[in-house]
């Protein structure tokens, strides 16, 4: 399987993903790795309506998606995997999901978060988790959209290593 994008985005499937990324990376399948969405048929159904008919969609719990990523049953299909949080992706990596690079695409502001850009605000735990991804040799890209500048995550969160 060419895993064309592994993205962290708390909005999961939305305009930036469908209109901004899908076309550019030409994904044929989207795997949403999210426990809450997988447990809610309504949310899963809404996602199906938002994705073009010709693109396959799986909405799976994080553990099931991780297992799927490891066994790689997709042949030559171009696959995009979406995680709803840094913690979920870190859990998948910890469990052996082979992700050579990660797009930190949307983690929006809230209490306890440091905002670096309109689309990226991280908690202390998330900064630690991202630093740990980098130490594992996983490249972290910070673009919300393919046309945006990829500002190094260490520049956005300079206190990351010491957080």
């Amino acid at each position, binding site marked *: 399987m060419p895993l064309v994008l592994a993205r962290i985005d708390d909005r999961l499937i939305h305009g*930036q993903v469908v*209109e901004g990324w899908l076309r550019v990376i030409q994904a044929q399948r989207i795997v949403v790795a999210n426990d809450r969405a997988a447990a809610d048929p309504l949310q899963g159904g809404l996602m199906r*309506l938002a994705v073009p008919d010709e693109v396959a969609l799986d909405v799976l719990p994080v553990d099931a998606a991780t297992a799927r990523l490891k066994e790689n049953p997709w042949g030559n299909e171009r696959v995009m995997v979406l995680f709803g949080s840094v913690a979920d992706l870190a859990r998948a990596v910890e469990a052996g999901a082979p992700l050579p690079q990660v797009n930190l695409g949307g983690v929006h502001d809230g209490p306890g978060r440091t905002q670096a850009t309109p689309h990226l605000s991280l908690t202390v735990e998330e900064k630690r988790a991202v630093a740990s991804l980098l130490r594992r040799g996983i490249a972290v890209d910070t673009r919300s959209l393919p*046309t945006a500048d990829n500002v190094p995550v260490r520049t956005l969160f300079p206190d990351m290593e010491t957080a």
Partner: protein
Amino acid sequence: MIGIVLVSHGGLGNELLSCAESVVGKQANVRVLGLGPSDSPDTFEGRVREALEAWSGPTGALVLSDMMGGTPCNVCLRLARDPKLHFELVTGMNLPMLITALANRHYMPLAQLAQKLVDDAARSAQRPLQKLRDHLPPA
């Protein structure tokens, strides 16, 4: 690339472009013209004409207007009589329509793009709850 002109009442066009750019990224070759409460049709026509003259070559311009029959649209209909201008006009602009226009204007000929926007428009107005009624709690 086809130039795009958004004509609307008030600030609708600016806001629409800003929303579309948050989805598909910053865009070149887009002009936005809003009809203000004190603008006469003639003043507005002059501004639209100026925008269209910049894209009067063979590639042409695509004008999206907010409402069929509104002044921004009517002004464009008047301008259509000028053979020096080359544009297509599509009414009822909305966010998916603008995103589709931006995504396809690099390779699709003008008339084909305009027709696609009209053909796709019905799909932007849906009743998703009807399709999902099996998943919803009983009323």
